[in-house]
Structure formats: C-alpha cells, structure tokens
C-alpha cells in the first residue's frame, strides 16, 4: 500500500515524521531545562539531588530522541544531513560536545573518585541545558534565515564563510529562537519537578520558576513571532523547482495553512495554560499541557519551514542550492521501506508511555534517595 504512494507524498510524510520526532525532542528537553534549574531553583544539595534524579530517569529518552531525529533526517533527507552537518560544522560539533558531557554527568557526578568533582559534572549539565539548546535553536533558525553555502553538480557542499555555522548563532532571529528554547525547557523542567518530586519547598519554588521563566521567554518568543510575520522567505516554484525570495513568506504560509496557524497558537496557548495551572492554580498536571503545547509549536515551526512550497534549508549564497523536501530526500524506494519501518513508532511510543507511567506512579522523595538503593542514585 505504501509503495503505491507518490514520491512527493512520501517526501511530505517523512517531513511530517521528522517533524514529530523533532517536536517530541523539544518536549523532552525538559530534562535540559531541569539541568539548568539546579543552580537557580534548588537551594540545598538535597534539592539539587532531587532535581538531578528526577531528570536522570528520563535523560536517555531525550538523548535517544535526538539521535533518532538525526537518524531520520539522514535516512529521509540525506542531502540536508550532508549539507548542514558538513557545512555548519562548528554549530553541530559544539551541540554534540554538550551532549557528550551530559551523557556521563548523571552517572559520574556522585560516584566516588570521579576525578573532576561533582560540581564539574553539574556545570556540564548546565552547559548542555543552556549552550546546547541555544545552538540547537540557532541551527533550527537557519531554516528561516538561511545559510551561506552552495552545492555543485554532484551536490558537494561548499560553505561560504570560514566560521562554518557559528555565524548562525549571531543572527538575532536564530539567537532569539535558541533563547526561547532555553526558557521553554526551563518551564517544562520546572513543571516536571512539580509533577514528579515530593518536596514541599522545592515544588513551591518550581511553581514560581514556571511563570518567571515564561516572563523571560516572552521577549524572545515575540522576536520569533514578529520574525515569522515580517521576514522574507524562500519560496519554491513547484513547476520548475526555482527558488526565489518571497515577501512575508512565512506569514503567507501561516495564512495559507490554517492548520499550522492553529498548531502554533494552540500550542502556545497550551504552554501558557500549563504555566498558569502550575504556577497559580496549584495543579501538578501542567507538564502535560506544556508538553503537548511544545509538540504543537514544534510541528508548526517545522511545517512553516518545509511545507507550502518552501525551501526548508535555504542558501543565501546561491538561492538555487537551497534544499527542499523534494530535492533533499531519499529515493522513493528508501522512503517506502522507511515508511514501513515507521509503522513501529506507535508501538515504541506505547511501551515508552507504559514504562513512564509505571516509573512515575510514585513521586520521587528524599526517602528514596537515601534509602536502600542510595548508592545507585545520581
């Protein structure tokens, strides 16, 4: 059945699948947000340990989703993988470095003889939650602001600046998107603490952290939204494949795809409700509104970049080198095979949700951190 689909349908389907994985990753960055809260919301070592252990049961899911996001882009859009990773070299390398140091930090922080000391591993976590997310935001921002590259007849990439992607982090729109992601992750992290930790003082401060971080996020969110509403975008002529600059392209995309507008506004509304519910109404379920809202916002951002005849990885050096979901994708055969594989995703989500429910059925408390299994705690 899937084999009968047009190549273009499969390309659109795979942009959607990659968008879903990417959006789920954005939700799961509550782990990164939680990692930055250890220096601002926790006031004692005990509270710090509670935050780290709460996040520590989920960090691998975030990490794995990032790896799957990369794998899905490699399999479905290899020209993007080759162009962006090979071209915007330093942005990706630095992102990877922040995730490398994160991966060991949970396990090593409290272990005796860990060489670098607990504080260093906590700083690693904080760097991952701040610098890592700013750079991811900057990388995603280039979907809208473009990058300086060109492709030759064999699709080999040449980057036009010696900074190899670092220039993206200095673009105000990209930077705003990155900082928005940082504060969004902190909001989600605080919501997860409220949902999962049994500690009155910490939870009280986490509730406050949700709306304070929302206030911090607002200017960056507004910068991004104003950018979407006003910036020129990279349109593709569906008949010829020629890329051109279009005035107000992303506003046109929002108006031309009301579903995406709904996803964006509904998502932001859901996050704001999650904050209100957690920060002011005393509810513990805000993480779910925040999480669903984040996924919807993520889907809206990726849809704005890739659908409605838009170049999702535009080149500002050579417009015709810009990548679209049509010229950057894998062959029809590979996308068909991968679509069959993707049928397993709901099953994966189901067992992840089941285990999540089992493991989170009981809140994390100091008693658990100091109990029989104290040596195994992070």
């Amino acid at each position: 059945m899937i084999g009968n689909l047009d190549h273009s349908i499969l390309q659109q389907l795979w942009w959607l699948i990659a968008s879903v994985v990417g959006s789920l990753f954005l939700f799961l960055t509550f782990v990164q947000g939680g990692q930055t809260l250890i220096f601002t919301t926790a006031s004692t070592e005990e509270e710090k340990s509670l935050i780290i252990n709460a996040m520590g049961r989920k960090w691998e899911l975030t990490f794995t989703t990032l790896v799957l996001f990369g794998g899905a882009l490699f399999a479905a859009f290899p020209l993007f993988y080759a162009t962006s990773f090979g071209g915007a070299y330093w942005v990706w390398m630095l992102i990877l470095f922040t995730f490398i140091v994160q991966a060991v930090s949970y396990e090593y922080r409290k272990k005796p003889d860990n060489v670098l000391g607990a504080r260093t591993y906590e700083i690693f976590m904080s760097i991952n939650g701040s610098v890592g997310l700013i750079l991811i935001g900057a990388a995603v921002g280039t979907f809208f602001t473009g990058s300086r590259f060109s492709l030759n007849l064999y699709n080999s990439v040449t980057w036009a600046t010696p900074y190899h992607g670092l220039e993206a982090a200095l673009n105000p729109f990209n930077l705003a998107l990155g900082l928005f992601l940082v504060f969004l992750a902190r909001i989600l992290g605080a919501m997860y603490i409220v949902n999962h930790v049994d500690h009155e003082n910490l939870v009280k401060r986490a509730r406050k952290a949700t709306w304070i971080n929302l206030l911090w996020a607002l200017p960056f969110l507004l910068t991004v939204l104003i950018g979407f509403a006003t910036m020129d975008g990279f349109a593709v002529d569906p008949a010829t494949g020629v890329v051109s600059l279009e005035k107000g392209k992303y506003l046109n995309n929002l108006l031309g795809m009301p579903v995406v507008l709904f996803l964006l506004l509904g998502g932001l509304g859901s996050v704001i409700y999650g904050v209100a519910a957690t920060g002011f109404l005393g509810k513990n379920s805000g993480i779910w509104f925040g999480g669903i809202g984040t996924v919807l916002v993520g889907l809206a951002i990726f849809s704005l970049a890739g659908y409605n005849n838009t170049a999702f990885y535009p080149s500002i050096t050579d417009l015709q080198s810009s990548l679209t979901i049509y010229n950057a994708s894998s062959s029809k055969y590979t996308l068909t095979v991968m679509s069959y594989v993707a049928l397993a995703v709901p099953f994966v989500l189901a067992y992840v949700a089941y285990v999540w429910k089992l493991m989170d059925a009981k809140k994390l408390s100091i008693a658990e951190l100091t109990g029989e299994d104290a040596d195994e705690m992070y």
Partner: protein
Amino acid sequence: MEDQLLTTVDWARAQFALTAMYHWIFVPLTLGLSFLIAFFESIYVKTGNEEWKKLTKFWMTLFGINFAIGVATGIILEFQFGTNWSNYSWMVGDIFGAPLAIEGIFAFFIEATFFAVMFFGWHRVSKGFHLFSTWMVAVGSNLSAVWILVANGWMQFPIGMNFNPDTARFEMQNFWEVALSPVAVHKFTHTTSSSFLLASLFVVGISALFLLQERHQKMAKRSMVVAAVFGFIASIFVAFTGDEAAFSVAQRQPMKLAAMEGLYVGQEKAPIIAMGIINSSKKPGDDLPAFYQEVKIPGLLSLLANRDPNSFVPGINDLVFGNAERNIVGAEQRMVTGKIALAELARYKYAKDKGDDTESAAALSIFDQHKGDLGYGYLNNPAEAAPPVATTFYSFHIMVVLGTLFPVIFLLVLYFAYKGTLEYQRWLNLACFFSIFLGYVASQAGWVVAEVGRQPWAIQGLLPVGVATTNIAASNVQTTFFMFLTLFTALLIAEIRIMMKQIKIGPEA
C-alpha cells in the same frame, strides 16, 4: 587545494579511528555484561537468594558506569558521518541512513526505556517486570549492534543498490539484500560473540582479583562460574564465526585477506603465516621479500579461503596489477575503466545541465558500460588499492592468537571451580585478571583488521575515503580531533577511576 584536501582526509580518518576505538572500549562490555547481569538476576528471581541480588547490583553498577561513557562516545559517530564525511553522507545516505534510523527506532528506545527501570525500578515495579527490563536492556543493546553492523557490512560489501547518475549517488534497490547481507550476518555474529567473550573475561578477571585479595570469595566464585560458562560458549562461536568471516572476506574482499596474511604473490596451496616479521619496506610489485622471518603452515590459507587446501589464493600484486592467467583484473586496469566512467559521468551531468539530450544519452551509455569500476577512477596509483599491510597483518595475528588463548582460560576456571580449588590457583587468577586487558587488545585488533584492511575504500570498490570527506579546511577537523582526544581521555580516566573505586568497594558493601 589538493594538499589541503588530503590533509582533511587524514584528520577525518584519524578522528573516526579515534572516536570509533574509544567507543569500542565500552560497547563490547555493554553487549556482553548486559546478558551476564540478566543471568545473575534470573538466578536471583528463581532462587530468591539475596546474595545473587547483591551480585546483580554490583555488576549493574559497573555496567552503568561503562554504559554512560559508551553512549557519550557513540553519539559522535553517527553525526560524524555528516560533519566529516558529508560527500559520503550524500552519495550513500539513501542506503546507509536507513539502518541508522532503524537502530534508533528498534534498539535505542528499548535500551533507554528499560535502562531506567533496571537501575531505579527495584521498588517501583514488580520483581518479574524488573527482570524483564534487565533482559530488554540486553536485547536492546544487542539489537543496536545488528543495525550498525548491517550498515558496516554494507560498506564492506555493497549490494542491493545502483548508482543514479541524475542524483550522483547510490540508491537502494533491495532492502533485504542490504539487511541480510552475508557480510552483515558474519559481522554481527562475530562481533557480538567476541563481545560476550570480552565481558566474560571482565567478570572472570575482576572476580579473580577478589580471590587474589581474599575478599568476597563466595560471590566471586559464583560470578566466575557463570561468566566462564558464557565465555567458553562465546569462544566457540567466536572461532566458528571468525572462520566464516574470513571465508567471506576471501570471497568478497580478497585484497583484505591478502593483507591479513602478507601475501603479495598469489599461489596455490597458500600457507598461513603462523608467526612473522613483516618487511616494512616491501611495496606492491617490487622484488623484496614480504617477511624478514616467518613460520608457515602450508595450504592452510587456501583451505580457509576456499575450503580447498590446493586452491589458488590471489596476492596483493595480482589484485593491484592483474593476473591474466587467473583471470584477475587488477586495480591498474580498473582505474582506466573507472576514469572513463568518471569522465562520462561529468559529460552526462554537464549535458543534462545544458539540456543537451543527445549528448547526455551518449555519455550515459558509455558510463553504464564502465560504472562498475567507478570508484577506481578516483585512485591516482594502482598501489593505493592495497591497505596498510603491516597494520592489518599484525592486528589479525594478535586477534587470532589471543582468541585461541581465552577458551583455555575459561576451561581452566571451570575445571578448578569443579575441583573446588579456584581460590588457591594464584597463577590462574593472575592470568584471569591480566586477560581483561588482553581481551580489549584482541577486540580492538579485530576492528583494526576490519577497517584498516578495507582501505582505501569507504565503500568497498565504489568510494575511496578521499572522495567521501567534507570540503572543509583541515584545521577544523584537526581542532575537533584534539578536542575529542582531550575530552574522551579525561572521561576515560574518570571512568577507570570510578570503576576501580567501585571494585574496591565490592559487591558486599
């Protein structure tokens, strides 16, 4: 420009070798120890004996420390294909990307989900579900090995695909040929069984240390027996799958086999070099002897390579310069064909770009006749088709010699455990402890054979490493090389220190 690109290639290769070798310090222990922990916990659940639970938790702690750095060193490998090998990513991403994505969907999520239960679920889930989770971590870890080895197997033996001149890349034609490639199957069985062996050596070696120190003796002996049984069975599989893998190499990568044995001139009744000192000055086509000293076993290489002790095994010279008598087309001749293919591809692309259909059709027709040797067209000298012989030869022989030693150690452990005198065999316990390091040497040597032995190819016969790299100044890759070297070394030191401390604390803390 060319010098600059060559330097970039060199640094990209060095970086990949560095990160892969660091990663491979941790992965085999994860693959094997996960199953050993599942065995220990199964015994605990079946017997209800708390000592087995303590044992399970002790090895789990070491597993967790190792697992974390394995994850940390692993992420860079996936993304390095894009950062340092972007031409590779485009040219074969249509095929190579799929196994990596499948690995994420089918394996990594199992590991990530059940890892949390394994470590933090003792009081949050039932005993049965905890055991199930431990098994799932073992299954998930080994499933991830399946898909990355499918990808690696395809690089060694590219099948199930075709070159598309319009997109200038290789595209998948048959997923099942890729997934069930015999090379992938051999790689998976050999790699996982050797990982089980290494993990068994680790458990036996650490337990032997406890016996030498006269600490935790009861638990140490229990661990040793379970691990020695597992390790001995794994050793048998390693030998069997190693033989199959070598046979597969002989059929599909004859140049690698010739390098593994330092065989320059093909011959019937080809010998295996049991021991030898390679002549490092030797080059393909010259008259220098291949070895300063060697001990041969006549006919054994022919037997292993073709299942016939009298058969002909081609040497490096045959494969570089050709051997008309044996109908072997050498790299020298294939370079000529490959350069025609490259020129016609360029003509085709140019004509297509200009909209000249007649010219493009003519170019495509010639290209199709020569495309089988496309990769050889990128070589500048036929001798480039030969891998570094000394590195490949020594790595192979170190791996084989050590691989032969390990089952003997496992058998001795089982024998003295049966006699009830294991704790008194100081020499054996010392040997067990030092075998941990030998196990790592053998494991790393195996990958050196596999990867150095396929040089100069990123994709065997189709894409040399020099063409696969990213068009980026060498200084960038050089900088990240040293960043990785510093970071991974620091993390390795931390890992070893933490491990040693946990071993010092022991299972009965």
